[in-house]
């Protein structure tokens, strides 16, 4: 759901003059063919039914009591903070990476691109294990971090951010790289003829022009980080208040208090929808002439 919303946002931005999407089915030239309409409707039901079930079975009456528990707010706050930090890390490292992939050519660029996007298809649990091997107390780099700086990442809040960024950054890189490739490089040339270095051109011309694409990528990464489960539980564990994010809390609650799990899920759903809706409105507001 989150990804459809952001993709649309990016699409609208990139195609000025295109009418608003979502006006409903356009019956151009003789209606919608049944072989397309039927699967589409089934797909729609398939996507919406679980959400509907969540709303139907929610313990609405017990909800205030469930949500008054400080543990819920603790987990929610941790989730929002770590997802935002992970998005910030992804932006700082991912946007330059996307620029390098889109604007330069170096030997092995295609390979690098494939490796960067590997976490997209890697099962997050495997990512968590890999992170442990790299940054764990006895990991390839982690051992050195520990001995030289006394920094340990696993089972800390910072570890949650690391795990989330590892999984979420590829979304941002792919999204921003696509936007950069679609952007008109002649504006960068125009900036160069006005005396701008490549970095100045990037900072003052390219970046503002691709800002909607970067925002779309950031939201995609943020949503992915907010929902991150596998890599987080593997690399950072599930300590309430420290590394137990909402998805972990939901999963653990489901085992001994299903009603609490549903309440937590509702909160997570509400937050996701609220944030995405808020951002979408801002983009479409900016896109309207």
């Amino acid at each position: 759901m989150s990804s459809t919303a952001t993709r649309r946002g990016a699409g609208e931005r990139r195609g000025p003059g295109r009418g608003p999407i979502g006006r409903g089915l356009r019956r151009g030239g003789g209606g919608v063919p049944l072989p397309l309409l039927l699967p589409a409707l089934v797909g729609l039901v398939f996507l919406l039914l679980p959400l509907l079930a969540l709303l139907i079975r929610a313990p609405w009456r017990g909800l205030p009591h469930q949500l008054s528990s400080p543990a819920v707010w603790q987990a929610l706050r941790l989730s929002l903070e770590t997802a935002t930090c992970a998005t910030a890390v992804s932006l700082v490292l991912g946007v330059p990476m996307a620029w390098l992939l889109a604007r330069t050519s170096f030997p092995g660029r295609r390979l690098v691109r494939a490796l960067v996007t590997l976490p997209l298809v890697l099962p997050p649990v495997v990512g968590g294990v890999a992170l442990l091997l790299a940054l764990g107390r006895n990991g390839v780099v982690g051992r050195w971090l520990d001995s030289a700086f006394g920094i340990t990442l696993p089972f800390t809040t910072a570890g949650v951010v690391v795990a989330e960024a590892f999984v979420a950054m590829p979304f941002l890189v792919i999204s921003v790289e696509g936007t950069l490739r679609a952007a008109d490089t002649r504006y960068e040339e125009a900036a160069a003829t006005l005396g701008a270095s490549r970095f100045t051109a990037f900072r003052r011309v390219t970046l503002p022009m691709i800002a909607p694409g970067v925002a779309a990528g950031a939201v995609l990464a943020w949503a992915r980080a907010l929902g991150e489960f596998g890599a987080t539980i593997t690399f950072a564990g599930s300590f309430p208040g420290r590394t137990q994010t909402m998805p972990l809390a939901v999963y653990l609650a489901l085992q001994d208090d299903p009603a609490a799990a549903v309440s937590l899920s509702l909160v997570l759903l509400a937050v996701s929808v609220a944030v995405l809706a808020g951002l979408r409105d801002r983009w479409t507001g900016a896109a309207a002439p």
Partner: protein
Amino acid sequence: MTGEPPGLDARLVVEREAFRLDVRLRVAPGEVLALLGPNGAGKTTALRALAGLTPLTGGGLRLDGVPLEEPERRWRVAPEHRPVGVIFQDYLLFPHLSALDNVAFGPRCQGVPKAQARARAAELLARMGLSDRAGAKPRRLSGGQAQRVALARALATGPRLLLLDEPLAALDARARLDVRAELRRHLAAFEAVAVLVTHDPLDAMVLADRLVVIEQGTVVQEGTPAEIARRPRTDYIARLVGLNLYQGRAEGHLVTVGPELALTTTEKLTGPAFVAFPPSAVTLHRERPDSSARNAWRAVITGMESHGDQIRVALTGEPGGLPLAADLTTVAVAELGLESGAQVWATVKAAQTHAYPA
């Protein structure tokens, strides 16, 4: 600086698969040079090479005696370090910046403090008569206003070489007229070298002091607008300036231009020569004109279209297949009963031809 003459001195060689550009350009400060040529002739490549956006593969480029690019020495000044201003075909104003900040962009990149850069930009916009549009984003500007902002932006860095790529192509016919006159004023006031690229002969003739005509990557003719309009040397230029052009061998007043066609001209020449005459100098006849008409030959009508209050008749000469354009009044076309495929006789008076050495 050296004792070399100021201005632009370039031999632009850009070799690509299936294309080679090789043009020699010398332009003095204060002079406006137009590169004129059909699409794909290499005009834009030449302009990009001057700006440093397309690397030269040969030749070299000096501006006011300073070498900007010498491929043989592997010397190349990056575009951002060249004292060059460019006005791109669709202006490429930065859409997220106001007109003022677009103009201030160049000075800012040169390290001018923000307030000072904006003051300079405001002054330039005022000179363009755009003070009231300073805060507008590019998409709110009309074509003519955007063009002036682009000119102000290019001038803001104090360039020694101003490049204009099809400066009027993005405008509609109405705006073109005003903007062309205005651009001419600004270019006349510009003290350094200006090079503009266009495929429109009118733009070139109005805006430029000198034309360089490029076809297929090489210079085919060079001169003042008047010279080129009077003595075209290729079919492309002849078509642009609206003349019939034949190439042949001259002996005295006679220029042999085809297997069975020799035209009598007023000029007396020997050797390879061109003969040019306007379509209005051509008369068409149904029957063979009497023997006193000397420049007469058979032709077949291949097309007709209205051209102002005249009708432009396209013909192919027989034999030899030399193309010919003739301008006739509507009345004449009706009286002669002309139609596509009709066989006619064409005549041209010697006094209306112009012969010059090839």
